[in-house]
């Protein structure tokens, strides 16, 4: 049994590829003369049009005082408030009788980057950072100890200020 094929008769200008190709190329060439919006990421981290928000909550940073010691007094509020339970803190006492953290570790894998630790800190010591490049070769490196937290240099988050909701 022969297969019946219905041949559609369409006007030549509708089925020609020449016209469609020219139309596509025209769009392509038009973009060559328009302003560029692509950022060359690894070389370029921000542009005038685009930069990471100051409220960004990324990996943590521990601020230090003038003597280079961490501002943390090991009050225990951040492990208490932490919804992901990712902060390990063991308090100790230094030679002057000041309370300070013997062990302060944040497991960045467990962290949900809510920023509560920064919000609750009475000494403005622990901060979430404006930072997103966290790749490491081993999983163990994602547990940041006190030394690592102190040596981070990226900007700290301003968080969201309820008195200034638009961030102005």
């Amino acid at each position, binding site marked *: 049994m022969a297969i019946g094929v219905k041949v559609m008769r369409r006007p030549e200008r509708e089925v020609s590829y020449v016209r469609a190709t020219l139309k596509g190329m025209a769009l392509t060439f038009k973009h060559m003369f328009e302003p560029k919006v692509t950022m060359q990421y690894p070389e370029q981290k921000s542009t005038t049009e685009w930069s990471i928000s100051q409220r960004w909550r990324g990996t943590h940073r521990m601020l230090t005082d003038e003597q280079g010691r961490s501002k943390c007094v090991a009050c*225990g509020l951040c492990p208490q408030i932490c919804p992901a339970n990712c902060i390990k803190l063991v308090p100790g006492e230094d030679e002057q009788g000041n309370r300070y953290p013997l062990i302060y570790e944040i497991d960045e894998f467990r962290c949900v980057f809510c920023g509560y630790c920064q919000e609750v800190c009475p000494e403005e010591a622990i901060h979430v950072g404006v930072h997103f490049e966290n790749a490491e070769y081993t999983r163990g490196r994602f547990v940041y100890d006190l030394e690592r937290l102190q040596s981070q240099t990226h900007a700290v988050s301003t968080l969201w200020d309820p008195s200034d909701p638009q961030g102005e």
Partner: protein
Amino acid sequence: MADELVNVTIDGMPVSVPKGTPIIEAAKQAGVLVPHYCYHPSLPSPAVCRMCLVEVEKAPKLMPACVTSVVEGQVVHVNSASAKKAREGVLELLLINHPLDCPICDQAGECELQDYVFQEGRAGTRYAEYAKRYSPVEDFGPDILYVPNRCILCTRCVRFMEDVADAPVLNVSERGDRAYIGISEEQKLDHAWSGNVVDLCPVGSLLSKDFLHKARAWDLDKTASVCPGCTQGCNVSIDTRDDVVIRIRPRPNLEVNRHFMCDYGRANYRWMNRGDRIEAPLVRDGARHTATDWDTALARFEQVLRGASGSAVILATGRASTESLGLVRRLVDRFEVAAAVQVPLGEEAPLSGVPNLALRRERAPNLAGAELLGYTPQWAAAMRQALSAAVVIVLDADLDQADEAALAAAPGMVVLLGTVIADALRNVELVLPVTTMAEENGTYVNRDHRIQRYQQAKSQPGMARPAWWIAGEVLAGPGPSADAPSTAAEAFELLGERWPVFAGLGHGDIGYTGRVLRTGSAPVPGRAEGAAR
């Protein structure tokens, strides 16, 4: 209680209280907390903090609730606008010199100043430019630090040392805003009960060096327990964090220890955190022990008991629960039994302001209970008998080297129900891991025959089980049995069958403040007999 009752209304709640009750106690009956600092139910009231001022209708001005006795028909407003305004003022003045170093203060989380300021203090300060007075931390005694900056001068510590401990070493020195708690020259706060000033201090001014920076108050799990230190049986709370005992604090029981406990009892918790515990039953296999499961170990225990005849000796620790002592004693009913309980002796240290309260000479919490169950404190005699007995059961006793050597050479079967094992006892027949009092529920009977419950504060290591469970399983016979007790309460009920003094009493009846047992002997004078919950 037979006294005349007066009717008062506190914050709209009518209550009837005995004549002479201070308003603050009547308010407690009405379910209203009057904020206070200097008042403490176990101390005389000087009304110095002015925090408990309340509005009393028809009185010309606010009255201090801690020293004003209730009068018939009195109407008191604790939370009226004028009372709240007065409290807000007091709190504002207290905060002028308070350092607000809550993040590094050990009291944070259980601080009355923090609580009340949060509850009804001013939102801001009006003394921003004023420089706070500063004084360095002082060392008051073996376990106590004084932080003058945080002090609110409630004088509870001064009154405790003067009126309750009868060792007046603390005083209020200087006056006005320079005042601080002073200590007499050449003297230390080293009374046997001085640790109580740390609990009494409503703020973080008096601190325990032992607890300093160790834990935050909100991290601690508190478990109602009984002090295992001596025959007094003070009610305590065992505070743990992540299964580690951090501190022991008194739990109020007006019949036994009021609100206090001694320093010996406070420091007596390190053995609860030992790491070298036996974690699995060990049976002797030739010259060495091999770890095994409970079924095998219990069958072996039964075999040992069935195979022996003649006399049996039980060497028990004074810290064993009534349940454990009783059921282990029942195990050897078939034998001629010598049962001894170990009672270390120490110095007696009374707290003079509270009748019938002292750190007792006999440092075993369950001596009275053991005696009711047929044990004696004649340790040396039992030790001698152990050398000729067919079966010796050691129930977690602290053996010295001579005892260990003697037991190692004993001809009979030695079964150790213990928490740790000494090297000298490597040849005992059977080692069964048991729990300490911090890891089980149970009861102690104190020297006034008050039976009191304690609860499990931390988990047991490995396969350790309470000694009553082991004895109960062996008594019920091999295999799973519904007769074997599975809780301490069930084990306790089994005691009543054999010792009528415990009959008709259950854990539920004992409650959290204990109950005096009706023994044949006369009750101790000066102590009300009967149930008080």
